């Protein structure tokens, strides 16, 4: 139970970074932290108490394995997170070329 609440705390840390930081790079780091928190939560829901790793071996019994499906899904989610992060960093680099700053309070030309 405590582990899940700690995942929520980590997600809220990431969300705080996204909402309150002024530097674009820190916002991107906040997105990354939030994605880590969600992936960690996903794997933790798959844990079975005193379960062993879900690998078939001859002579081993099938009972009491941890759930392998979320592990596969989290691999996919990590890759999706990687793609999004790469795009965000590329955008940040181009924004620096055009605006000359990373400060989001100065990159506010679209309003209204």
């Amino acid at each position, binding site marked *: 139970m405590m582990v899940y609440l700690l995942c929520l705390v980590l*997600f809220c840390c990431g*969300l705080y970074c*996204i909402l309150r930081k002024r530097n*674009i790079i820190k*916002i991107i780091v906040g*997105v990354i932290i*939030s*994605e880590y928190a*969600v992936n960690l*939560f*996903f794997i933790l*829901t798959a844990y079975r108490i005193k379960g062993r790793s879900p690998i078939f071996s001859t002579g081993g019994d099938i009972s009491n394995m941890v759930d392998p*499906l*979320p592990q596969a*899904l989290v691999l*996919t*989610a990590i890759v*999706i997170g990687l*793609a*999004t992060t790469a*795009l*965000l960093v590329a*955008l*940040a680099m*181009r*924004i620096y070329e*055009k*605006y000359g700053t990373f400060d989001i309070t100065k*990159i*506010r*030309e*679209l309003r*209204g």
Partner: protein
Amino acid sequence: MGNFTTLALFCFSMLAVRAVNSQGTLVYSLGGWRPPAGITMVLDGLTAFMLATVNLVAFLIAVYAVDYMEKFTSKWKFYSLYLLMLAGMNGVLISGDIFNLFVFLEIASVASYALVAFGTERHELEAAFKYAVMGTVGSLFILIGIVFLYSFSSTLNMADMANFFGEKGPGNVTIMVSVLFIMGFGLKAALVPFHAWLPDAHPSPPAPISAILSGILIKSLGVYTLVRIFYNVIGVTPKLSSVLMFLGALSMVIGVFLAIGQWDFKRLLAYHSISQIGYVVLGIGLGTPLGILGGLFHLFNHSVFKSLLFLNSGAVEYATGTRDLRKTGGLFQKMPLTGSANLIASMSIAGIPPFNGFWSKLIIIIAAVQAGRYGYAGWAVLASILTLASFTKVMKYVYYGKLEEKWNKVKEVPFFMKLAMAALAIICLFGGALLIGQINRAFLQPAVEVILNGRNYGAMLFKRIL
């Protein structure tokens, strides 16, 4: 080359509509793994309807982009990203497995973040960054919702989940999952209060990209997934239905109030997108057969006329180089085809008979009155009147009025752009024909029946496995 792909997709989607009509729901399991262990692709009435809408508008926008993208370098990058986004949207529509739906949703979203930044001007990059961060947060909420659903029902297949919810009934986690999904998919669909990315992200990119973002992406990723999960998997309750209707009505009214004061052509159209999606969600949230019919028909109509409006604004920008309403004027004499197409689209969105927007708005308002929700019907009528007012303003400032000196040299836009706009305008004119009996039964009614079927979606899991 890209146009042949979109044309082929459109023909396939028409075939899909005919297949669903003749054979009922089709299920295909990937790799031969039988469900619920494997991933399935499901083609039922709602999917066929959405596929036809998405591919038709995408094909016409690709035709338009043949001429418009001449002004940009690296056209091949545009076509790659465009086809990638289209693949993602089609995947979302066909997927029968909830994590597969999430993967395709992310493919389409990341491609759209890159497309918004396509011209790499200052405003486009800023808008793309804001859109990307907000879109990622929305996707994270959707992922948390999927995690909860998986750990509650121990399956990822949507039909199996529907069966599970039918047997066990909603648990305590269902309310939290519903809220997470409303937040996540509502952000993709640009419902108020999750709409903040849309007024920056839709005006900035080049016109065909704006058209496909506003005309199709928010509907395929946002409204379709909301409907599929809430009606077919979790099962809609009266409380959930009234939340959807409230959010829809809020979007309708706030969108149109914010739109009237805009002086940028595309920003005005972007705010109107929020308003019209509010109409669709209000119609679908009503839950009655007539309401759902109105909502889905308005979804189709909005794809057509909103794309046409964005393509018109692109034509104006191509010819004059500006989007500001105060600077343009009297363009009707120089660009008659663009002007008449814009007139048809404006009358459609404002709901003037006999264009297609009138029929769908009328059905939504009648459905609201029949269900006894007079307040929502009143707000819908008010939003419609204000939409008419703001589009009268657009027409007056852009097309009618005195032709200024500096616009004396503008000419009509090139051939493919004219072709795409004319085709969309003709669909606007005759869109009301979709309600006539024969075509209605073939196209719209299967979609309505799938939504009304609710959790019986799960019954098709074990039959018709190809």
